[in-house]
Each structure stands twice: as C-alpha cells, then as structure tokens.
C-alpha cells in the first residue's frame, strides 16, 4: 500500500535529519500531497450534498486554507482527507495513490482538532508521545523527541500536567505538538484557533506560520475567518454550499475574485448588477460604466472594492466618474465608510475627510481596471449562514 504506513521510513529518516528546513519562498516541487477527484459527500438522511463534485489539488509543502462559512462543507472536506468520512462518490488521493477507504490510522496524516481532543487521562508527556508509541518507536527514542516537540511549541516544563490543568492556548499547543511529532506528510487543522481569545489567536497564528516554515510539512487549514486565511496561506480555496468558488493565492482572491460570493465574503465590496451595452461599456440602472474587459454575457456582476474608489477632485480624470449624494456615514476610526448615492445606485466608498457629511454632494470615480467582472453565485449574507 503506497499510502505510507506511519511507522516505517518517515520516522527513521526524521531521526537522522532532525530539522527538515525548507525555505518558504523556494520553488516547490509540484507533487500533489492531496488530490480530490470529483468528490461528493451526502450524509445519510440528508438530501443535499455536504460536498458536491469537488476537485482540488494541494501541493507539497504549502500552507493551504479552506475558507467558508459554517455549513459550506469545509470541515467535511477535511474529514474526508483525514479518513473520518468516506466520500459518497469520487476519490481521495494521498501522494498520488488512491486512499479512498483507507482508515485514518493508516494514513500519513495528522489532525489538530477544533476542541484539541487531548486524552484527558494522559499527562502532556503521554499525549504527545502517543503517536510515536502507536508507531512502535523505541522508548529511549521517544523521550528526546517529545522534549523537542514540546520545545518547538514552547511548552517545556508542562510534561507532568494533565490536560485539564492547562489553559486553552496551552492545550492548543500540546495538540499541535502531538500532531507534529510523527512528522506526517500532511497536517490538517480544523479551526484550531476557534476557541481562543483574540490576543492568543494572533500569537498562535504566528506560531503556526513559523512552525510550518520550520518543519516544511504541508498544512491544510480550515477556517471561517477570512483574515486568518489571507494572512496565513500560500493558496486558499473559498467554499460555499459544498462547492469551491475559487482556488488562488490570497492576493488573487482579494484582487481578482472569480465570483460574486468570493468578492463579498473576502473583504468589503460593491456588487453592481450590470447590463452589457456593447464593447467596454455597460450600465447599472441609470449609471453608465466603463468596464475592465468585455463581459461574456449580457447581464453580469461588477465588483468594485471601496478602496478602489477615489473620492474628491482626484477622481476627475478616471474612466468612471460620477457625482453622488452622501448618505449614511460610519466612523471607523482610521477612516469613514460613506454610502454614496448615484441616481439610486448605492456605493460604499472610503473617505478620510471630516468635511464630508450627510446630504453633501461629492465626486467619486474609479479606474475601470480596478473593478472586476465576477460570476454571479449569490452574494454572502451573514443571515444566510448556518446549518
């Protein structure tokens, strides 16, 4: 079986070369650590697919995030990669070999659970040593490796504690040490920071990112927090309703969203329902628009980020230029979020000027190249969340 038994080769090479340092920016080999081919998952007793016809490739050594609201199928995807769930159809490939149906304990994959799942009757030392013990690593080898793993997550000195004697952040780090000690090919993280408070999250984000660089293991990180996903990932997939909306680098996702859902879910944006008027021209309601490119269809959605919209005299030379009436103003501290009304079309723009007040007339505009034509997939609305 090519889906690597945990014990064998990996462990022995790891002991010879304790540090598998890989520079984050070095060109990575294009081996697919994980490949999903037409994977669908329908839970028994449910009509709707939790994951529908999904294709995904995750490369060696990358920090890959799956981003989506709850019920989008991101955790199901992760559980199929880990082996806790079997796909209803399609196949899961690990390192190029079909792993569909292979039980979790035979996969060279480790998971950091959302609730950590540390064994409550084992001390930290035993918890972290558990994967090695299961792999049959000799006892004298286990101890230094546990020490090293705990040191890596700055938990030295906590060996003799039981999990319930640790704080949330400490448990998190022990869970991380346990998941990494077997040096898996792949580490899955299921909303690992979900239960931590803001300050701790931020420091754990850095720990994670640093750790991933250091050990060079492929990370798949599932989260609903777009900030986390953008900050951490080499690439990320945005999921919605069991389908992948887009897979790209964080910058591409932000600057060139493929669908209206992605545009709305990542950051703030204005989505304009437009009609094509020939060539690079279109209109949204009574607004005439210059377009970045020719749309494929007569009706399309244009995404314009608020920060792409210039307010004031600077907007005069731009391809799209309008006079707008100021509606509501939200004061956010470093800037103001202004609702600008252009003949019934409402646009959100940003302004630093204190001179703007409700009822004023302002000039706004944007370079057509700063807007993106996106595929209509329904926009993200918080109240639609949940399952």
């Amino acid at each position, binding site marked *: 079986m090519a889906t690597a038994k945990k014990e064998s080769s990996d462990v022995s090479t790891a002991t010879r070369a304790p540090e598998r340092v890989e520079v984050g920016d070095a060109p990575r080999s294009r081996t697919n650590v994980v490949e999903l081919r037409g994977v669908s998952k329908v839970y028994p007793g449910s009509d709707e697919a939790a994951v529908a016809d999904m294709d995904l490739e995750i490369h060696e050594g990358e920090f890959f995030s799956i981003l989506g609201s709850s019920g989008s199928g991101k955790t199901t995807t992760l559980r199929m990669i880990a082996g806790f769930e079997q796909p209803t159809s399609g196949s899961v490939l690990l390192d190029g070999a079909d792993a569909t149906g292979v039980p979790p304990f035979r996969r060279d994959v480790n998971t950091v659970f959302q609730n950590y799942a540390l064994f409550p*009757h084992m001390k930290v030392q035993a918890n972290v040593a558990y994967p090695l013990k299961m792999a049959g690593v000799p006892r004298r080898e286990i101890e230094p490796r546990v020490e090293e793993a705990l040191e890596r997550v700055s938990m030295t000195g906590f060996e003799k504690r039981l999990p319930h004697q640790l704080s949330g952040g400490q448990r998190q780090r022990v869970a991380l040490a346990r998941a990494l000690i*077997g040096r898996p090919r792949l580490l899955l993280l299921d909303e690992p920071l979900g239960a931590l408070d803001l300050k701790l999250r931020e420091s754990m984000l850095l720990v994670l990112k640093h750790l991933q660089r250091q050990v060079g293991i492929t990370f798949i990180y599932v989260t609903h927090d777009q900030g986390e996903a953008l900050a951490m990932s080499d690439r990320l997939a945005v999921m919605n309703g069991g389908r992948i909306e887009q897979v790209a680098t964080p910058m591409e996702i932000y600057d060139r969203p493929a669908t209206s859902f992605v545009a709305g879910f990542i950051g703030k944006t204005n989505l304009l329902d437009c009609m094509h008027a020939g060539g690079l021209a279109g209109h949204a309601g009574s607004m005439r628009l210059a377009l970045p490119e020719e749309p494929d269809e007569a009706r399309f959605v244009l995404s314009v980020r608020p920060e792409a919209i210039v307010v004031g005299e600077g907007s005069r030379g731009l391809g799209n230029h309008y006079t707008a009436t100021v509606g509501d103003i939200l004061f956010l501290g470093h800037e103001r979020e202004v609702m600008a009304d252009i003949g019934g079309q409402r646009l959100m723009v940003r302004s630093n000027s204190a001179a703007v007040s409700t009822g004023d007339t302002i000039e706004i505009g944007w370079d057509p190249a700063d807007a993106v034509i996106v595929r209509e997939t329904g926009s993200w609305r918080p109240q639609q969340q949940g399952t």
Partner: protein
Amino acid sequence: MAASAARYLEPVAALPRRIPRPLKRFLLVSPALVWIVCLILLPNAFLISYSLWKNELGTILHVWNVHNYTELFSSQVFITLLKRTLLIAVVSTTCATLIAYPLAYVVVTRFGRYKTLAALLIIVPLWVSYLMRVFAWKIILGENGVLNGLLKSIGLIEKPSTALLYSTTTVIVTLTYVAIPYVFLASYTSLDRVPKHYYEASSDCGASAWRTFRHVVWPLTRPGVAVGFAIGFVLTFGDYVTPQMVGGLSGTMLGSIVLQSFGTADNWPQGAAIGVTIICTGLIVLALLSLFTRLEAEIE
C-alpha cells in the same frame, strides 16, 4: 434614584426572620438525616446488636458476647458456604461484566442514533418481576424444559438430563443473567460519556480500533465498569431467591441460611451474625474495587 432604590430595599431588609438560622439549616438537612438514621444506621445497629446477643431456644437473652461469630467461623459448613457464595457472586458478576461491557461498547460505537433504543431493549427485562425472570430459567433448564427438549430433538442426548438444574452452575448462569442489565447500564453510561473525537484523535495518531480501546477508551470507562461490577456483586452476593429456586443443595448460598435462621430455625442472633459477615465481606470487596474507580481525568 438613590432614594427610590433605598425605598425598595428597605422593606426587604426589615422583613422579620420567622425561622432562626440554625433551626432552618437543621430543617433543610432533616429529610436526609431521617433517611440515613431510619434506613441505614438503625437497622444496622439492630443487626449488630442482635448478632452480639445470645439465643436460648428461640428467646433472645440480652447478654453481650461473640459466641455467634466463634460458632460460625468454627463451622465447616459456614466456611464452605461463605467461600461458595463469594465464588458464585464473583464468577457470575465477572461473567455479566464480560458480556455487558462489550455489549455496551458495541451499542455505543456502532448503533449510532439507535443506541438509546438498543440500550432500552437490553434493560427491558428489569421491568419483569425478579421471580418471573428466575422462574423462566427453571423452565429453560428443567428436566422437561426448553433446553432438554432442544437437545433431545437434535439427538444430542437420549433422555432428559437432570444435571442442568439444581447446581452451582445453574445459580451462576441465572445470577449472571440477573446482573447483566445493571452492569450494562453502568458501562453504557461511562462509554457514552467518551466523546467521538477521542476515538478519532486516537485513530488519527495511528492507533487501530483495538489499541484505541486499550489506551483511551478502557482507562476512561474502567471506573464505570467497576461501579457496575460493584452493583452486580452486591446484588448477587446477598441473593437468596435464585439459589432457592434453581440452586438445589449444591447451589445453596449464605442468603438462604440467613432466611432460615430468621425463619424456621428461629435463631435471630445467628442470622444477624451471618448478615453482618455478609455486609463486611461485601464492604471489603467494594473497597478493593474502589482502587479501580479512581480516575484523575476530566472529560470535556
């Protein structure tokens, strides 16, 4: 504002305290106290006193002595019975545990959302009268019983066997059956408390189902099993109905002797002494068991 708040607060503070505090405390605790005194302390005090009094042809002389105990422990019959009773109770409860715990494990891990239904079906026999359940075994194991009939019809035996009923084994089988639901209940509760993600985490760390059981599930559920075993043991150790109905002479247990002493023999002090011995033996076994119930863990 402050004035109005004070106005609202004052009457409450001025409320007369009708019941003085120490009395109130006593009243609150009293139901529990009554329970403990009437149902535990007094009966045991009586039992112990009786066991230390003297029997004179059916009348009790209030003379303190340990004669009843010395007589008991010098009697070969009593020693044999005590050993047999211990053996029967330990063996049948162990058998019940060996059946009920794996059963509970399968129900909890494999039955999904039907596990409550499955658990209910296993406990259902408890709704039937105890006598009926024991009597059912008489029907199964008796000379003209179901088992003999079956064995005869498939040609394994020529004529009905009388060996099935009225033996130590019969008592063990029946008491095992009696103890199963109780051990099951305790095992089921403790197994059900182990969250699914512990199984997953263990599997994720490379442990097979068996090793997950050995290293994670068993240590976490052992205390529950010990409790189930304790209940089963107490139940079977003091039983006198089952031995009397299916045990015959070789299946006699201490409980039957207690019944006889208080009944036909009319020797209350001796019966009380046996009773106290049963209680003490039970306590010793429970104390040994409690070593297994300790668990220094908190399941989230």
